[in-house]
């Protein structure tokens, strides 16, 4: 386990770079190299993360609006997630975390509720909820 841990950072970094490059080059909306969401494949429902890969592809190409329309939740959470990942990398490399935010438990529970509600709302095919579906705002 110890030995494996030594490779976690380089392997993780390689995977992140490889997936980012693949996301930049292939559009998940048209390319078949990315697996479909199993939930959507089986049930036809959108989950809270539906459209996030396509949104990241658009973001890598500078299309913030298109990314927002595919998955607004991902775009809102992205700075927080990026900071968390950066903090983790800095900790691994320099042994010290970046200044850490302490989120009260209530906030995290609210965030969890928001993610679940977002997942439910974007499946409601009625205005204005349909705007939350992937690409929804493109076809009001």
């Amino acid at each position: 386990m110890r030995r494996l841990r030594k490779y976690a950072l380089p392997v993780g970094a390689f995977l992140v770079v490889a997936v980012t490059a693949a996301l930049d080059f292939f559009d998940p909306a048209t390319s078949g190299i990315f697996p479909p969401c199993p939930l959507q494949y089986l049930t036809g429902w959108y989950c809270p993360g539906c459209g996030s890969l396509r949104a990241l592809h658009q973001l890598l190409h500078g299309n913030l609006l298109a990314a927002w329309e595919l998955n607004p939740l991902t775009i809102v959470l992205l700075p927080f997630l990026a900071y968390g990942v950066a903090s983790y990398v800095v900790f691994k490399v320099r042994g010290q975390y970046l200044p850490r935010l302490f989120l009260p438990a209530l906030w995290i529970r609210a965030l969890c509720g928001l993610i679940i509600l977002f997942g439910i709302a974007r499946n409601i095919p009625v205005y204005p909820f349909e705007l939350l579906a992937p690409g929804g705002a493109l076809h009001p």
Partner: protein
Amino acid sequence: MFCTQCGANNADSAIICVQCGRNLGTGPPLSAPSTTLSQMPGASVPNYLVFAIIVTVLCCLPAGIPAIIYAAQVNGKLQAGDIAGAQSASKNAKMWCWIALGAGVAVCLFYGLLIGAKVMSHMHR
């Protein structure tokens, strides 16, 4: 007890303020307010929240939801001064993160195999 930094009312056993995160225990004096948690004893209990959100939103898997709930529990227990409880919730958060990630990787591998099988059957034709 009241927080010396923001005045919020906390449980007497709390080690950090529920509102601003200030160390309420044997922390540094007022002249050196600490807004970071890295020096505090409870700060070493990771809640894996970022990992949990990534597996929930980017892998879109329901297994990420218990991970987020356990992440909330870690911070809740820290706020109440229950370090042992926070550590146990932290273990559960970590476990659910890896379950979600494992399931996501399994789906990707399965999909890769399907594509591989498709390509092979085309080549044999």
